[in-house]
């Protein structure tokens, strides 16, 4: 007894020596938020580490913005705890938190110039005037708006306002920068360009970003890690690759990119090798979890992971007929009807320009579908 106590004690000691490095910057522990009968955020756990660019991804009403507002301090959790740098935030009002937020529509003060907007936060900290103006100049240089100091927000374009909002939040050097749909108000071209700017800036300043977005492409490009949210819960958390290639849930597979979802039944589970039958044949997965034989689940197959070719007499694989074609220029999307009337989506790169119209796949062509068994995704029910 005595012995074990001593070991646990020393473990705590060694742990404490390293906690600045290993301890998460942000810890969300069992946080829920209820508005009356409605549960916006449902028992969420999450750790975010220093330097991450973390995305909360989900459709409207999934609870992502509520979670962000709880981090900023505008809402209080109904239960659970939020810790930043190990400090409990529950009694800390927004104006005392080491976080800053970039608001969805930027929330720039219309009665103040760009300069005043950015200086506002620093003035609240009681910094000296010279220090404030120096910091303001530096941050304006970072977002390349030195020449717009004296303008009011109304006199700026959407992209410029976005950068002022970013600068205003960043200039306070927060431990955590919260961004609520940072790019939603920009048009498509500008949005793509700004994505990279945002990443560059984060790289330069090294501040931890938590971004809320409904745009899956944006989340994939920007983030180091993504949490996919639905109905107030985290469905899956992981790197963009993990989320895309190894979704663990039907919702995630469908929400990020697109997928053919097949009903499957487990026929055997021997030594971590799971065999599943579907109407497209057998799939096997390495899986350590205990999935009972006979249980039903889904198998996901992404359209771009299926290859399509004109069927020849020798073709042994799955045969189908082209029902519909969507031509996107770089790729084409085929809807292939199988013998059992099921439809399978297939995406193919248009690598070559067809020399002859006859070479082009067209409606009612008989085609052969094939895929690498390892690209199938096991999705639990």
């Amino acid at each position, binding site marked *: 007894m005595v012995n074990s106590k001593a070991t646990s*004690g020393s473990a705590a000691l060694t742990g404490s020596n390293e906690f600045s490095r290993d301890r998460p910057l942000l810890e969300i522990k069992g946080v829920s938020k209820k508005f009356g009968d409605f549960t916006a955020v449902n028992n969420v756990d999450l750790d975010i580490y220093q330097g991450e660019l973390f995305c909360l991804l989900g459709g409207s009403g999934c609870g992502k913005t509520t979670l962000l507002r709880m981090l900023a301090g505008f809402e209080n959790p109904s239960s659970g705890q939020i810790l930043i740098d190990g400090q409990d935030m529950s*009694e800390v009002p927004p104006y005392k938190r080491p976080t800053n937020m970039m608001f969805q529509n930027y929330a720039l003060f219309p009665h103040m110039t760009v300069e005043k907007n950015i200086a506002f936060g620093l003035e609240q900290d009681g910094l000296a005037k010279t220090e404030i103006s120096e910091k303001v100049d530096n941050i304006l240089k970072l977002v390349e708006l030195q020449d717009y100091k004296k303008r009011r927000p109304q006199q700026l374009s959407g992209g410029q306002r976005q950068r002022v909002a970013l600068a205003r939040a960043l200039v306070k050097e927060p431990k955590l920068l919260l961004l609520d749909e940072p790019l939603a108000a920009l048009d498509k071209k500008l949005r793509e360009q700004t994505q990279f700017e945002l990443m560059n800036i984060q790289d330069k300043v090294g501040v931890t970003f938590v971004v809320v977005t409904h745009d899956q492409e944006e989340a994939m490009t920007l983030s180091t890690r993504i949490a996919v949210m639905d109905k107030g819960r985290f469905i899956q958390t992981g790197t963009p690759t993990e989320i895309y290639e190894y979704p663990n849930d039907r919702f995630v597979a469908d929400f990020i990119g697109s997928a053919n979802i097949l009903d499957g039944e487990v026929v055997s589970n021997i030594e971590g090798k799971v065999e599943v039958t579907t109407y497209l044949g057998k799939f096997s997965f390495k899986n350590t979890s205990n999935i009972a034989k006979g249980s039903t689940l889904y198998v996901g197959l992404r359209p771009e992971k299926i290859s399509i070719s004109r069927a020849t007499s020798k073709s042994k694989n799955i045969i189908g007929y082209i029902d519909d074609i969507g031509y996107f220029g770089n790729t084409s999307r085929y809807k292939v009807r199988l013998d059992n009337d099921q439809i399978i989506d297939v995406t193919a790169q248009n690598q070559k320009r067809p020399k002859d119209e006859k070479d082009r796949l067209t409606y009612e062509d008989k085609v052969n579908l094939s895929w690498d068994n390892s690209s199938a995704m096991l999705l639990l029910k």
Partner: protein
Amino acid sequence: MSSVKKEKKPSTDLRYYISLSADKLQSKWKTIVIFIPFAWLLLFFLTPFFIVAKISLAELVITSPPFSKMIEWVDGSVITIRLVFDNFIYIFDDPLYARTYLNSVKIALVSTFLALLIGYPIAYAIVRSKPVTKQLLLFAIILPFWTSFLLRVYAWMGLLADQGTINNILIYLGITETPIRLLYTEFAVYIGIVYTYLPFMILPLYANMEKLDSSLNEAAADLGSGPINTFFKITLPLSMPGIIAGSLLVFIPATGEYVIPDLLGGGNVQMIGRQLYNEFARNIDWPVASAVAIVLLLLLVLPMAIYQHYQAKAAEVK
């Protein structure tokens, strides 16, 4: 071990807690912000109201103030509450009051309808104007509202009098030889109410119609609906909230109107607001005046509630 745990807490412990209590102080100002206007309205709006309700149940006595006390201490220990419904019975028994109430409602209803008839096309015309013209026209509609109500009514006295402008013109044109009696008639009261309350009708209508999507009209036209059909099937039903708001804003004050029936109706048009004022000022019968007020209020509770309901709904939509 214990030393490690201490390190976990923020080093600025004491300062942290002091600042927390400062926050508590900051949250107290919220209470003050609510309390000041709340107390004012409680004292000067709600309390007077209950006193009126109370006095309407009191007897007239010849003292100052001229009403009996409702709650009295008898033998220093027993409270007797005397409720006297005589004032209400008196109002209901006397056909004069019943007629006056009915007449008030009738005049208010007719004027509201007339104001709607005139106000609706005006509001619609403003909505259909170009942006700059729209601003100017709105200004033009609101401007009379900023000038004196009393003087706007007075202006009509000059128009409607026996030797007034209208009669002068009629005589000059040879339509009539002797002046037509216009002033001190019900007709004059209608004109007065419509004239003074027209902005109250136009503005809610405008606010409502301005929000309607013009593509709805285009869609109706595209589907083969003519302009008149489109108006009755699309525009009119969609502008219903504006019609209700505008109508209530005219009807409610018109029912209790005092100045217009007094100045333009003379002694010939009986309306309840005027009756109440007379009861209080000439007869000095405050209990009856209070009872008249309570009945008038009961009459208007429903329209007021409807108005509130629509306002709340409009606020929610925003």
